[in-house]
């Protein structure tokens, strides 16, 4: 069986890694998409559009970020209708990005890998920063139950976020890194961690913490047995092993 690109109007897919700071941290996912789309248009990338009634450019974010989340790991797949040379095009894009947003990496990925980006995300690393925050994290991570209220559209329900936190590392007194479940199967919204700090740590000040998405982890192929970061996966040739420093062991249940 041959694998065919279902979106046969595209010639190339480029995976971007952006860092996302500054004022645009305060906009929602759709507004972030629009900002990237407009930057790509200004940089004259030959965007590929979906066919049909309402053609849209094919720009896919690996993991949408909520309002107020900064990021050093915004992975975005951009489909193009003509081939470009990533270094050159990256230079053009860099100049057109809004304040606070920077292009860190750009690499071509196989067409077949592209559509899987969103579905393959499994985990994310977030950094939480606030004076004295580490002590509070030690306190709440000792709890087995961290139930907070989650609001979605009209409903409101209580969820225990503790099982979604897979690991933690104290970076300093004022900074903590969490590795959490992320992606379409199970996902932890990092702002809920602030609610937990507030509720179980007992101090409202932590609602002021800065949250930064540091890295994303994806399952590069079915039953791979390990997770890797998206750029790493982009570079992998069939049969080639990833850089061991960028692998997270993973046993798919």
């Amino acid at each position, binding site marked *: 069986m041959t694998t065919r690109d279902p979106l046969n109007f595209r010639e190339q897919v480029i995976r971007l890694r952006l860092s996302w700071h500054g*004022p645009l941290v305060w906009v929602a996912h759709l507004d972030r998409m629009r*900002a990237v789309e407009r930057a790509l248009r200004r940089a004259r990338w030959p965007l590929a559009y979906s066919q049909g009634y*309402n053609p849209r450019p094919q720009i896919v974010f690996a993991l949408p970020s909520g309002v107020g989340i900064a990021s050093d790991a915004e992975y975005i797949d951009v489909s193009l209708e003509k081939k470009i040379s990533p270094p050159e095009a990256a230079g053009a894009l860099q100049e057109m990005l809004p304040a606070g947003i920077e292009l860190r990496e750009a690499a071509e990925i196989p067409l077949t890998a592209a559509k899987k980006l969103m579905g393959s995300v499994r985990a994310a690393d977030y950094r939480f920063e606030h004076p004295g925050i580490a002590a509070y994290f030690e306190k709440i991570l000792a709890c087995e139950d961290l139930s907070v209220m989650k609001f979605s559209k009209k409903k409101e329900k209580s969820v225990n976020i503790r099982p979604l936190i897979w690991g933690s590392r104290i970076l300093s007194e004022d900074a903590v890194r969490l590795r959490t479940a992320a992606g379409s199967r199970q996902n932890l919204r990092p702002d809920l961690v602030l609610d937990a700090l507030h509720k179980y740590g007992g101090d409202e000040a932590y609602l002021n913490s800065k949250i930064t998405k540091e890295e994303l982890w994806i399952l590069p192929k079915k039953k791979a047995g390990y997770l890797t970061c998206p750029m790493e996966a982009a570079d992998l040739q069939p049969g080639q092993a990833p850089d061991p420093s960028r692998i997270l062991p993973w046993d798919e249940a």
Partner: protein
Amino acid sequence: MSKVKLDAALLRSVQLPGRYVGGEYNQIVKEEGNAADGQRRLRFALCFPDTYEIGMSNLAVRLLYDVVNREDAFFCERVFAPWFDMREAMEARDMPLFSLETKTPLYAFDCVGFSLSYELAYPTVLAMLKMGRVKRRSAERGEDDPVVIAGGPVVFNIEAMAPFFDVVQIGEGEVMLPELLHLVRRYKVKGEMGRAEFLRRAAAIEGCYVPSLYDVSYNDDGTIRAVKARDGAPEKVRKRLQLKLDESPVPLRPILPNIEIVHDRLALELFRGCPRGCRFCQAGQIYRPVRERSPEVLSKQFQEALAAGGYDEIGLLSLSTSDYSCLGTLCDQLLDFIGGRKINLSVPSLRIDEFSLDLMERISKTRRRGLTFAPEAGTQRLRDVINKGITEEEILEGMRKAYLGGYSGAKLYFMLGLPTETQEDVLGIAELVYKLLDINRDLKKEGRKVRRPEITVSTALFIPKAFTPFQWAPQASREEMEEKVSLLRNRLRHRAIRYSWHDADTSLWEAVLSRGDRRLAPVLEKGAEKGVYLDSWEEHFDLPLWLNLMEEEGLDPAFYALRERPEDEIFPWDHIDCGVKKSFLLREYKKAKRAELTLPCGEYCSFCGVQNLGAERCRKGAAAMQARAAGGKGEAVEEGADDDT
């Protein structure tokens, strides 16, 4: 200068925090420091009394931001009205209203300017001044307070807000505003004069109205006895006009909003003014004469602005797109350029004719957007009263073509409560709509392929405005309005028709303000004290509150809105000269009562007064008329054409 600090907890607690953070692509921030002349830059806060999404969609805000920032001596920043949640949070933190660019509190600016597009925003202006800790009344402000100014279409009658503004800009701001700001800078930055002297000098700038230099006296019946200018201010303030629009700069690096706004596209202004002269329309009078931008200049603009913005949509902007003399040429250029670039073109306010339908066809091969028409009235008689200049045959024929072109229907705009309107006129709306459905049925019978019809009808309520032929006319009372709406609603019950109507409460209040006088200022002030804010958002509008406050001040809404004003009444806005003469407006009012049409500007000239201002099109029209009159071809120049009142 103290700046406001927006912390994460605050931004996390409000809806759409992207409204408040600024930092958009193409935003302009100038470094603190001096201009080329060694003196510091003037700090100007350009305020729009509505939310970010509305304000950023406003072309005047974008034009003025660009024009003011082009000058090294000025730094212009934007200030919008925060939504209720943010306003509460700011109050709780004792945080003043601030600018998007540098988060500077309003009170720290040299000059605070409001762009006013609708009367209902007045209370929000007062609320914003309070949130920005700027003293409300001009008379209370001293040497250390900002100069507070206003501009925009509603300021042609700004009397209800007169005590709150130091200077009001009548007419087009792109030349006038920088001129005024240079004077403000000499006062505030260079210290060359005091406040009183500044106001006197401001009054000498063409188009600048300094309300405090005019004394208003009233008759016993509440009408104006006289308005007297003081301290050398002109008896009449003539509107400022930019005759050659091509010389007016347009923003080539448009700010791209952080969040989705109402009109999120590149706007191309084709022309100002409107040749039509619909008698209810204020814009059609105050923006006279018609002045076009050339397709060459527009073409250069859209190419540059698209490249600098990355937009995927262009919108044409004017009062009546079909009247742009180079529409064909421009659209060819536009379609040529956007083809293959995946950019959509949106063309509003088209008349329904062959050319427009053909154009719509070319614009959107795949995307079938809805058609909209504005017949405004249901019968030919009433359309003639308002000088709509469109016949029933044209509407029916246009709709027939639209059905055949694959449209399922249209959205139709009407007005209820127009002068001389009878029950027959109201029911005429329903009759017209059913005729449009019949056309669809007949086409189907003929075996033509048409889609199932869907007609949307929307009625607004007529609001008499200053500087229109209907400035003498009464507004229908709320009871009459409601009767008309329910009459029509009963007739429009049909599965192919959707009907929506506008609220009578806001229409009454808008009618009071739009022809109001200075005695309304305390009412607005008390409303602001009671916390009225963003009440043009209908769910926040409270008519009984305003009626009570009017009563407390001894004022009657009927006096302002519901009575027919005598021909010789002195209006609160008579000392403002919008170019169109009162005598012309009165002639038009009388013609309206006789249901007589006035032809559009162009080949025909009705000598409204604007022909003296030196616009190309006016000159030609006036000359042609005079030649015809001289040639004795039976078309007399209108009576009273030269009278100067």
